[in-house]
């Protein structure tokens, strides 16, 4: 009895650690600790399940150990070897495997145990979403990894086919739940579900994959919860529900961050260019949010502000100085790159920055700035345009070709604060805005800086 209770308490602690871990995971400072807590929770849970004396059976610990060692080794090696940039794909694969695990459990359950209707519903549910999570995640992985292109897996009227498939899936689900169906039918259902998962993800645009992965992740969570009901295990139940709920919210948040609705992502599909501004030649400029930009700034070593005429128009010099102060207080090295013709009169930027009391040694002129840029983490362009136009360097047809400009693209990241895509004084389009390192942050420079400031202060 006492031992059982201890196992129960272990599960309880595991559940609390899950909650706590997730909570810590949602703030940059504590995220790593949160992950560790959740992992400890998982370890406790697994330990609990290994010695739970309510499970009567023959142990078969060898099988268990084999599975655990094999899985842990593979998981560990893959996680350590994978490149930083490939991580999102990997998460998708992991998630798919989790789904597969759920599907296997439900298949075994459905085919070996005789269940009441409730049990069948739950098991079928776990089977369905486990399968969808599995094949869906795998396709998401292939897409993200660039192994498969959208066009290779979509058919005409794909969305209608998907709706049709869904109806069949739900019909079989109901039938199987009501009757004691044969294993053959079960296998058919399994295959159908696997296929549906694939087809479900197929039409969704490559850029939207993270959203889909998050959604499939919350599916896996729900299947785990369902399995928790089947095996009467509170930890699985709570953990699964938690992941289901937070995964759903996370999916919604991710859509919001891209300025789209979930519906839009799933059905509207097909847009390879989520949340971007369209350039002249159908080029796409990426945008960023105050939060992302502020984190980038906060966790960087060196930041270079590039003020331009927009700084003067917005009268944002004092706000900029405050952002500077705040970043410096957090150990970021902040400099200002002053282009000789920035603004509308000689020394325009000097006047403004002196007014804001920016110490002179922080102001770099063109040559010093260009020397410093390659080792700069983040460049923030505050209402400048012509003075950071790469056309001056690489487009001999441009009217400013030959003018020395700030080579901001040498830095690791470029954030551009301006109100729109409209050109500067010289009236020419700026390719910098479409550069792979560049993120646009639209809005009046003063407002933008102030929102960056409050985000940085929140960190």
């Amino acid at each position: 009895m006492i031992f059982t209770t201890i196992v129960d308490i272990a599960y309880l602690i595991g559940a609390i650690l899950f909650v706590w871990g997730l909570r810590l995971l949602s703030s940059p400072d504590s995220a790593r600790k949160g992950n560790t807590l959740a992992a400890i929770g998982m370890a406790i849970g697994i330990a609990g399940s290994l010695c739970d004396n309510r499970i009567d059976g023959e142990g078969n610990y060898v099988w268990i150990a084999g599975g655990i060692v094999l899985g842990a080794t593979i998981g560990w090696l893959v996680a350590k070897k994978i490149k930083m940039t490939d991580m999102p794909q990997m998460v998708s694969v992991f998630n798919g495997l989790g789904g597969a695990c759920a599907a296997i459990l439900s298949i075994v359950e459905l085919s070996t145990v005789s269940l009441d209707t409730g049990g069948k519903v739950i098991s079928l549910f776990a089977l369905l979403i486990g399968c969808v999570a599995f094949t869906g995640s795998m396709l998401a992985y292939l897409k993200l990894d660039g192994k498969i292109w959208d066009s290779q897996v979509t058919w005409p009227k794909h969305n209608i086919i998907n709706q049709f498939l869904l109806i069949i899936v739900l019909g079989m689900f109901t039938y199987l739940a009501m009757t004691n169906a044969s294993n053959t039918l079960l296998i058919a259902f399994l295959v159908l579900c696997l296929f549906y998962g694939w087809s479900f993800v197929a039409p969704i645009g490559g850029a939207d994959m993270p959203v889909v992965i998050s959604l499939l992740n919350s599916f896996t969570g729900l299947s785990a919860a369902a399995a928790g009901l089947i095996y009467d295990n509170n930890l699985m139940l709570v953990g699964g529900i938690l992941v289901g709920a937070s995964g759903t919210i996370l999916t919604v948040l991710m859509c919001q961050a891209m300025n789209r609705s979930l519906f839009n992502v799933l059905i509207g599909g097909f847009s390879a260019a989520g949340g971007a501004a369209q350039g002249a030649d159908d080029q796409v400029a990426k945008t960023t949010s105050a939060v992302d930009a502020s984190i980038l700034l906060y966790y960087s070593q060196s930041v270079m502000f590039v003020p331009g005429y927009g700084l003067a128009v917005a009268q944002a010099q004092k706000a900029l100085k405050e952002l500077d102060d705040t970043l410096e207080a957090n150990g970021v090295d902040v400099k200002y790159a002053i282009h000789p013709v920035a603004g509308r009169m000689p020394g325009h930027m000097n006047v403004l920055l002196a007014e804001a009391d920016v110490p002179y040694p922080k102001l770099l002129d063109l040559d010093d700035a260009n020397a410093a840029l390659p080792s700069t983490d983040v460049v923030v362009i505050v209402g400048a345009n012509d003075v950071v136009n790469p056309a001056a360097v690489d487009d001999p047809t441009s009217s400013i070709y030959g003018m020395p400009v700030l080579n901001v693209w040498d830095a690791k990241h470029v954030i551009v604060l301006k109100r729109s895509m409209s050109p500067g004084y010289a009236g020419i389009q700026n390719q910098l805005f479409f550069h792979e390192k560049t993120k646009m942050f639209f809005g009046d420079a003063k407002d933008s800086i102030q929102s960056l400031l409050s985000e940085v202060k929140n960190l």
Partner: protein
Amino acid sequence: MIIAYLKENNSDISPIVPSNVTKLLKFLDEVWIESGIGDGSYFRDSDYESVTIKSRKDILSGADIIVQISPDITDQEYNSVKDSAIIIGQYAPFNDAKIGEGLQAKNLNVFSLDMIPRTSLAQSMDVLSSMASIAGYQSILSALQYMPRYMPMMITAAGSIKPSKVLVIGAGVAGLQAIATARRLGAMVEAFDTRAAVKEEVQSLGAKFVEVEGATDDKDAGGYAVEQTEEYKMRQAQLIQEKAIASDIVVTTAQLRGRPAPKLITKETVEAMKSGSVIVDLAASTGGNCAICEDNKVVDHNGVKIIGDSNLANRMPQDASTLYGNNIHNFLKHIVRDGTIDMNSEDEILSKSIISKKS
């Protein structure tokens, strides 16, 4: 190629400063200067390393490129100039169309720096901008030399002093710099211009823009102002009258290329102004924006001082020389390609600044 710089006689500004020399030698063979060229701007001959000191005569006859600020080469001297030589200076052909013809007649290669187009690319060679910028800064400082009052507000135990009011008419390069300088010193600044785009620029410096409705705009005039309608001029003159009367310092910079400067401050306005106020007229050389202005003089009209000075940059000769020298260096770097200057190049800067080409 040998480049040679002539000493200015009417100004303290030098067309070359010591730091230019090594940079010039990167693409030119020799640099010659006239002795004492930097005297007015606090540079001694010995500060110019790696140059050859030559007499004016030698320079005229021996150099491939002759640089001066204001064109003071006499007709006689022109005859001694090398055949292929290129002369660089500020000829202001817009003020006198015959200048170009005269030079052409002498079959000379002449660049006039004041013809460099005012594009972003050419800004580093734009001597008008550099000098106007200094003039704007100095306009306020020279006004303060005469003003018997504080510029900033002062609430002190001995009484509260109101901040001075400064009115800037014409917010081009000089005007903007004047605004910035006056604001720095704590004045309340208002500014006028006929170009609509300037409004935002004025405000970006924290000054107030005084609007007269109905200005003819000029987007296509390449940055230079265009003449306005009569009715507009009248209403503007009225408003300026009111604002000027309330001001302690008025800075006028309104110029029209190749035409006499518009009269924006009338005699009556000056007479209605507070005694002790100061007007700085930067358009003095083309007749002045103020009716009572005299070029290169400080007129005292009933206690109001009118400073007529079109060459305020001369009050700050050292930095003026530095900027001027850099402008010329940048210009040369742009036009000299592989050791020669292609007078037939289609380059906008080069072709626009040529006012006479050897045939």
